[in-house]
Every structure is written in C-alpha cells, then in structure tokens.
C-alpha cells in the first residue's frame, strides 16, 4: 500500500513511501562515488576489450589493437625458455656421461633440475628421497638390478620394466606356490634358506637339514635368475638376496609371499613421456645420488 513519505532522522533522507511488513526504503540518491567507480570500471573494461582479442563477429573475432594472442604468446615463451636452457641442455645432449660427471658446474645444474624432475616423475613410487617405498626399490643405496653403468640406467628409464615399450625390460618372479611348482615343505625350506643369506645369524636357530634342503631347492629353482651365489643377475633383473635391501620386504612372511605368489613389478616406459635430454638428466641425477651415498 502506498504509504506516507517520511523523513528518516538518521540519514535525513525521505522514504519512497513503500512499505512491506514494516520494511521501508530510503530514496537516497546513488552516491557520486559509486557512479565514479562504475564509470572507471567500465572505462577500464571497455579499453581492455579494445586492446585485447574480444568481441565476436560472424566470421571470427576482433583481434585487439595490441595483437596479443595466447597461442602465439605461449609458443613464444616456450621457445624462449628452450633457447635460454640451450647453453647447458646442448651439452647434456652431446657430451658423454663421464665428461658431464667430471664437470662440476654442469653437475650443479643436473642436481638442481634433476630434483624437480625426479619429484614430478619418479618420487611417487621411489619416494621423495629416492630410497624406495614398499614394492619399489631404493635407488640411492641398493645395488641396481639391471646394472648401474650410465647407459644401462638410461636404457632402463627409457624402456621401463614390464612396461608398454616393445623393448621393455622383462622380469617376473614366478608364483612357485600358487602355480604348484613347489610343495609347501619346499617353500618353507627355501624361505628359511633365503632368510639366512642376508642374516646368517638366523641359521643357528634353524634345522640344519632343512637349510641344506632349502639350498638344494634354491639351486634347482632360483639360481637360474638370482645366480648360484644369490647375488642377483643384471641379465635377468633378479635382485641380490644376500644384502640388506628388499623391494618387497625381507621378513619371513614377505619372502614367503614373494615365493608363493610371485612378483612382477612395473616401471613405466618413459620414452615419449620424457625427452632424451630429461632421461639423460635423470640418469645423471640418480647416479649422482648413488655416488654421494658411497
């Protein structure tokens, strides 16, 4: 209902005369500041649309007076960054591993750049400190399974293990229990034997006959990949069983699990995802971590 127009004591303004369940409105003019603000914002925005690609038409759009284009801009900045890095990436590409490793200045760049590269690509499995997580080996301290000369490490990164590359490294620990290749007693014996390889002190608490039998089972079934001395073979990618490093755990239950169900860990084939420069850089980075550990 059209009510009375009143004057508000606090503001000195009059009301509009409308009232809704006790709520009234003042007829206060829009403050000048707000107009100024609106006009400034509008001028800014209109100017911006004149400078930048903006208004659409039927066949395309207005390109803007500054001629800015995000595709061009991003391509340009990627190229510029590549040119900037070329002073050292070209050396990574062209020089051999030994030469790079001997150059302290270049290795400083490798350490710096490699850390972020490792963090973004490798740390999810091998851990941020590269010391492995359950199922993924320690890259810093443990012996490598496929060889630790630079070319071999680079190749492992390139093709991966049980990966998608046609050239991928292939390794599988058979499921001796699940696939009925060994009897339960054989498994128990060989697990005991393997336990003593890295912890000889355990042998004292075990039955000597069992251990002897375990050694026989090992020679017949395991030595083919792990080697007669159980120190692993880089040809097969089978790990050394006599040291303190275990990918899947070195306690009895874990070893038993490995023998019974087998193992077939995967490392992606990084070729195509990482550039040859990056693969080489990561190789140098990982080998550098290892070198510092020793």
């Amino acid at each position, binding site marked *: *209902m059209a009510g009375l127009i009143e004057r508000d004591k606090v503001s000195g303004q009059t009301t509009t005369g409308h009232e*809704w369940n006790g*709520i009234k409105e003042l007829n206060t003019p*829009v403050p000048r500041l707000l107009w100024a603000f609106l006009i400034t914002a509008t001028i*800014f925005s209109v100017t911006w649309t004149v400078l930048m690609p903006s208004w*659409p038409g039927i066949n395309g759009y207005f390109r803007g007076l500054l001629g800015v284009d995000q595709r061009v801009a991003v391509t340009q900045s990627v190229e510029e*960054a590549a040119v900037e890095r070329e002073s050292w990436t070209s050396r990574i590409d062209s020089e051999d591993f030994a030469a790079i490793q001997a150059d302290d200045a270049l290795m400083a760049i490798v350490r710096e*750049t490699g850390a*972020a590269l490792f*963090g973004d690509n490798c740390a999810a499995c091998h851990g941020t400190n590269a010391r492995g997580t359950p199922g993924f080996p320690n890259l810093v301290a443990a012996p490598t399974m496929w060889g630790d000369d630079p070319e071999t490490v680079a190749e492992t990164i390139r093709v991966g293990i049980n990966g998608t590359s046609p050239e991928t490294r292939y390794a599988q620990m058979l499921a001796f229990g699940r696939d009925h290749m060994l009897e339960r007693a054989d498994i128990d014996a060989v697990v005991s034997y393997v336990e003593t390889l890295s912890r000889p002190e355990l042998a004292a608490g075990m039955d000597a006959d069992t251990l002897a039998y375990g050694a026989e089972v090992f020679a017949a079934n395991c030595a083919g990949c792990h080697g007669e001395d159980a120190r692993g073979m880089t040809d097969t990618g089978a790990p050394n069983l006599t040291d303190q490093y275990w990918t899947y755990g070195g306690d009895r239950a874990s070893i038993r699990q490995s023998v019974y169900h087998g193992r077939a860990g995967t490392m992606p084939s990084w070729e195509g995802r990482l550039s040859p420069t990056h693969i080489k850089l990561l190789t140098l980075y990982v080998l550098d971590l290892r070198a510092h550990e020793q």
Partner: protein
Amino acid sequence: MIADLTRAERLWAMLILGALGLIGLAMAIGGRNDLLGIHGWIVLAAGLAGFIAVMRGRDAPEPSAERLNEYYDAPTRVGLILTLLWAVVGMGVGFWVAALLAWPDMTFDVPWLSFGRLRPVHTSGVIFGFGGNALIATSFHVLQRTTRARLPDQISPWFVLLGYNLFCVIAASGYLMGLTQSKEYAEPEWYADIWLVVVWVVYFAIYMRTLARRKEPHIYVANWYYMAFILVVAILHIVNNLAVPISLDSAKSYSLFSGVQDAMTQWWYGHNAVAFFLTAGFLGMMYYYLPKRAGRPIFSYRMSIISFWGITFMYMWAGSHHLHYTALPHWVQTLGMAFSVVLLVPSWASAGNALLTLNGAWHKVRDDAVLRFMALAAIFYGITTFEGSFMAIRAVNSLSHYTDWTIGHVHAGALGWVAMITFGSLYSIVPSMFKRERIYSQKLVEVHFWLALSGTVIYVFAMWNSGVTQGLMWRTYTESGGLTYSFIDSLVAMHPYYIARAFGGLLFLLGALTALYNVVMTIRMPAPASDDPALDIPAKPALQAGE
C-alpha cells in the same frame, strides 16, 4: 501437516505420492542390474512412506476456513529444520574431506570413503542441502510477508520442499555409490536432474501465483532476487545437464556437449550457480531479514536497482574467467574478465547498501549476535566479491588458478557470506515461526557467532597462504631455467595449512551443531500463554476493497 491439507489436496497428495512410488518401482525393476535400481528403491520408499502417511490422515476434518487468514508457515518450519540437518551433514563431511587432505590414509581402502566420492557430498550437502533448504524456507516466509498474501495452496509448497530434499538425497547417495556426471556442482545423473526440473517449475509457479495475488502495489527487492534465483537456476540447470542416457534403465548418461564447449557451458553454469544460487538468493534473504532485525529502512532504493540489474546482467558473462589460459579462445577469456571487473561495482553497491542500512543501528550490531551475523555476512560479501573480480583478472588468475586460493575464495563466500546470512536470518525467524517468545539461549547464539567467525578466518587465511605458496612454488624457476620445485614439494608445503583448514572447518561445524541444539531447545520450550498473531497475518479480504 496432513490436517492442514483440504480433502481434495489430500487426494492429490496421494495421487502424486502414489505416482512417485510407481516411478520408483519402475526404476527399481528396470534398473535392477544397475545402480539406478538402488535409487529406484529409495524413490519407492519415499513415495510409499508419504502415501501411507497421507492415507492415515485422510479422514481428519477439513481444515477450518480461518487458516486462510493466516500465513502458511508449516513448510518454512520444516524447511528450517532440514536446513540445519543438512548443515551438519554437509559441514561434517566437509570437515572429514579436509582431514582427508591432511591425512590421506583415512580412506581405509573403502571406495565410498574416498575423497572423490565424499567431496561432492560436502559441496552438494552445503550448497543444495543447507543453502537450498534455507532459500526455500525463507523465500516462502519472505514472499508471504512482503506480498501480504498467503501461499496459493497447501500442497505445492510441500511438493517443492520435500521433492527438493528427495533430489538432495538421491544426489548424495549417488555420489557415495560412484554415480556422477563429473560436472562440478552438477554431478547428479539425468533422472535426478529431470526430477529437479519438475520441482523447480512448481517452485517458480508458487512464486508467480503468490505475487499475482499480492496485496502490496510494489514488489519488494527481496522478491526480485528470489525470483532471479529461481528463474536463472532453472535455465542453468536445464542447459548444463542436457544429456542422453545410455538407456532408460541405466543411471549413466553422456553430456550433449564435448570439448571446450562443454567446459564453457559447465563454467557458465558453475559461475552463475554462484551468482544466482549463492548470491542472488541470499541477497533476497539479506534484503528482508537485515532491515527487519535492524529496524532501519533500506539505505537506498535507487542503489538496489543498480545493484540488481548490474548483478543479473554482468554475472551472465563472467563464467569464462574460470577458463583463463586454457583451450578456450582468448577472446572469450577477455570478455569474461572485462565483465567480471565491472561486476565489482554492483556487488559492492549491494554490500554497501546493506551496511549503510545499519547506520543508526550499529549499537544493535554490537549487542545482538543475530544482527551481527548478518552485518558480518555483508562485509564478507564485499570482501569475497572484491577477491572474485581480482582473481578474474587474467594475470592474477595465472597465479591463483588451480591453487587453494580458489578454495579460500569460495569459502570466504560460502562460510562468511552464505552461511552467516543464513544463520542470522534463521535465528531471527525461528522464535516467531515456532511461536516462542525468544530463542532458547542468546548466549549460545553468541558462542555460535564467534565459532563461525574464528572458523572462517582460520580457514580463509590458511587457504590464502597455501594457495599463494602453491602458485609461487609452481612458477619458480632455477637460474638454469628448470622448475625449482616438484609438485610433491608443494604438497609437502601445504600440509600445515591443510591441518589449519580442517581445524577452521571444525570450528564452523561446531557452530552449526550449536545452532541445531539451540533451535531444537527453542522448539521444546513451552509456548507463551497467549500469542498475539495479529501483527503477522496476511491482508484480510476486507482490506482488498478500494485497492
């Protein structure tokens, strides 16, 4: 509830609920080999329970004609309680997912406890469950008071309120089972979307029918905003959810859009959901409850006009600022940014209009936590809209995009603005809605206010810090031109902020629990000996003559 309905309405209710039950049965049978079937059982249970309830009350006497001389507030009362229940659910899950980010092992390898499934329960729980129920409940209240007309009938408000909550339940339970369209804030699948359209059309019809019968010559600003909210949300919802189900007995559907068109449609929707659901609707709430509680006239009717048309016009264009530096053509990004910058003006005009309305009532803001909730909401609205326009600037966005800054921004709005205006409004109508003299404990309202404020501040500061840190870490280069930090380095840096954020969220959740307790205790207080409803009734038919 059922005794309020006329006999004819009871029959209609049984018909509708029976049909709903049959649809549920069809879904359950047709989708028996699909997750759709489980939703079928839920719909069937809802329809059947309602049907039985109405059938049991169908012989109650016809409601007295006296009822037409009063406002119809029963749906608002139920809506207010549902608002608080959803607040506890939505914020509780929010706290849980915040903790999950700090301690990710807490999924316990249970699929439905994973972050991806719980997170939409949080977002939909607070936006649609808490926010939506608050909007429906208050809009029915405000609509009647500002038109001095009773709601047009007694069945459609229930259809809207309960139907909407059925949608919320279908949505949340679907997420837990892994059902999603993978569109942020539009996750529910096709059948839930269709149901919401039906509910929403009835909602809009209630609004139009009541406005058409209004006894006031002018339509109050609050109703402009509520109507903009209902109308635009309908448009957004329908367009963004256009999809083809793979078959009628499967929950799965494919969107009509693909590629960058899909992204643009989604963020046109997403940003306007913020604009018209979380802004326009709650501005409607603010425009009624704030001046009412303050006992002051609105500062400027003229500013209301500028704000309203500015907000409704500008927001529509701003969505593309969510897609800066993406495959979206550059020119669309420029337009999104340009409109977002101007949008600050009507937004601040709204916040300013609210705060200037408090001139002459600031002593009340000091003394009354309920009004303080609403005053603070207006301040947070101002802060958040400034931040939003700022982040929409392309160069700023290159730092803020994909970081926790966005999450901080959203929560400055959701906690500081949306939830605070809701709690303020809720406290101010609960006593009159439940015919009690006062709220059970003013002291608890005060406690809630400080929990909410400290929770919001901790949350937002944690996310500002973590967001800017993240953004800077991602763009820091070494002298040799490589990235200084890996992504995982930035995650490690986030950890303390994630703990702080979970703590802030916990405080806010405790506030919501306080509110629920306070409201329940208010309802349980004895009714005053005689209530005087004379002041809160619609215009009598006799008054119509001469209008």
